[in-house]
């Protein structure tokens, strides 16, 4: 009899809460959740196909699909999930949530304080060979500076579109094409919208690999793309001591100038320093488990943060537009810098190298070399491109420091 009574009050949807919450939510959330689930699947597919960066896109896409599917009714009647709650600020509430949400400890202790961005930066530092930069510092810095054009141009545009100066600076950092830097800056300046900004940034950074070749072909004629870089004297090899000295001096000087971006500078240069000091075991640890582990967790958390409630910010369309604009202007700026050097050197400089000033290490350098090789197989520009690429990272860090110092 009791069982029958239970059966009468039993709602079939209570058994499948993901569907129940979908039915219960308003039409906007319903459409957003379904769209994000499909987008997540698409990202996994594009990652597998190699169109987007698979290291980031596979965990991110799957996380995006899973988080929008697994929304349930919480004890207080509201809708939520048991993955992570990025908006919790009260300490007691956080301690309670940390015992329920499985990704909350990783989010709180690594993501929201920028630690994961610093770990990725250490990994980038270990992978960088600053020798290319030491051989041609002025050329590399010149190109990197021009490739930041999008970062500066986006700020007034963003404020004209209704964002405040901190939000504008955060989304403008997408022009620097450096994921950890965007994450760090938006955490410092615009914590209220750092989730959509970081998601937009990482989505677009994946596109640099696919989109920039078209920009190069559009702006640079075939004849100029094939220019062979000739050197009067072969560059002197740079010793490990020089690279180590470079890392130590640069880290100290930049930390002195911008203490707020100190963690980023330190992380980048400590990677360079341990590599050049010959600390093999630490290099193996940073370039292996730390870098890949951080990238995986970063992708996973970014996907999990793409929950419909969090992403349905009225500013998301503005951010999407500004993000792509910043990257586009930066790419154009880099190529313009390349053209300037082409004219300064009397036509001996390949303007394609300019795109490598956009600091998406090492994607843009690889894109530049690929495009040049398609036209002239004998033209090797990779050393120039890597130098500009590394300078791009340094310039982005300088700008991040400047923004945080001025606007915080």
């Amino acid at each position, binding site marked *: 009899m009791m069982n029958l009574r239970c059966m009468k009050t039993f709602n079939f949807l209570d058994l499948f809460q993901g569907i129940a919450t979908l039915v219960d939510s308003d039409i906007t959330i319903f459409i957003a959740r379904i769209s994000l689930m499909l987008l997540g699947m698409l990202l996994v597919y594009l990652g597998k196909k190699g169109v987007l960066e698979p290291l980031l896109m596979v965990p991110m896409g799957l996380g995006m699909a899973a988080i929008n599917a697994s929304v349930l009714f919480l004890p207080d009647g509201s809708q939520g999930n048991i993955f992570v709650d990025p908006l919790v600020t009260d300490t007691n509430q956080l301690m309670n949530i940390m015992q329920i949400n499985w990704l909350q400890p990783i989010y709180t202790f690594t993501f929201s304080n920028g630690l994961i961005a610093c770990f990725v930066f250490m990994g980038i530092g270990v992978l960088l060979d600053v020798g290319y*930069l*030491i*051989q041609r*510092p*002025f050329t*590399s*810095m*010149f190109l*990197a*500076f021009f490739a*930041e054009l999008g970062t*500066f141009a986006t*700020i*007034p545009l963003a*404020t*004209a579109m209704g964002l405040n*100066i901190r939000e*504008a600076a955060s989304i403008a950092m997408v022009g620097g094409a450096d994921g950890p830097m965007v994450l760090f800056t938006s955490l410092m300046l615009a914590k209220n919208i750092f989730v959509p900004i970081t998601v937009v940034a990482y989505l677009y950074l994946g596109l640099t690999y696919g989109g920039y070749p078209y920009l190069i072909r559009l702006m640079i004629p075939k004849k100029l793309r094939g220019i062979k870089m000739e050197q009067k004297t072969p560059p*002197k090899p*740079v*010793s490990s*001591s*020089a690279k180590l*000295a*470079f890392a130590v*001096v*640069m880290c100290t*000087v*930049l930390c002195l*100038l911008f203490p707020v971006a100190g963690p980023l500078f330190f992380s980048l240069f400590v990677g360079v320093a341990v590599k050049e000091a010959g600390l093999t075991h630490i290099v193996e640890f940073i370039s292996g488990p730390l870098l890949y582990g951080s990238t995986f967790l970063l992708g996973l958390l970014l996907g999990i943060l793409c929950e419909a409630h969090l992403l349905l910010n009225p500013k998301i369309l503005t951010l999407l537009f500004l993000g792509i604009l910043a990257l586009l202007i930066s790419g154009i700026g880099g190529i313009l810098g390349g053209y300037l050097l082409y004219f300064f050197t009397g036509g001996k400089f390949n303007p394609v190298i300019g795109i490598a000033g956009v600091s998406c290490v090492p994607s843009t350098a690889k894109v530049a070399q690929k495009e040049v090789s398609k036209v002239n197989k004998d033209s090797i520009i990779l050393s120039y491109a890597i130098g500009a690429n590394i*300078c791009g990272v*340094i*310039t982005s860090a*300088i*700008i991040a420091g*400047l*923004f945080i110092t*001025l606007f915080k």
Partner: protein
Amino acid sequence: MMENIIGITVLMFFITALISFGVAVVIKFIAFLIVSQKKSLDIKYFVKLYRLYRYRSIWQTRHLRKMRENDEFEMYENI
């Protein structure tokens, strides 16, 4: 408001240019000191510097002694 933001952006643009140039100069300096294998960081350089310092102190002592001999100290003391 908009003029201010454009002004700040232009200012930041120039500050970044300046810092980028400064960074390039620092890198060039490091390259000059170490990469080009100049002898400037050689131990002899420091020995020379130390000798210079010693000469300076010897010169100072001599100079002071000379001043004392000429009673220049007293003259200053009177002033």
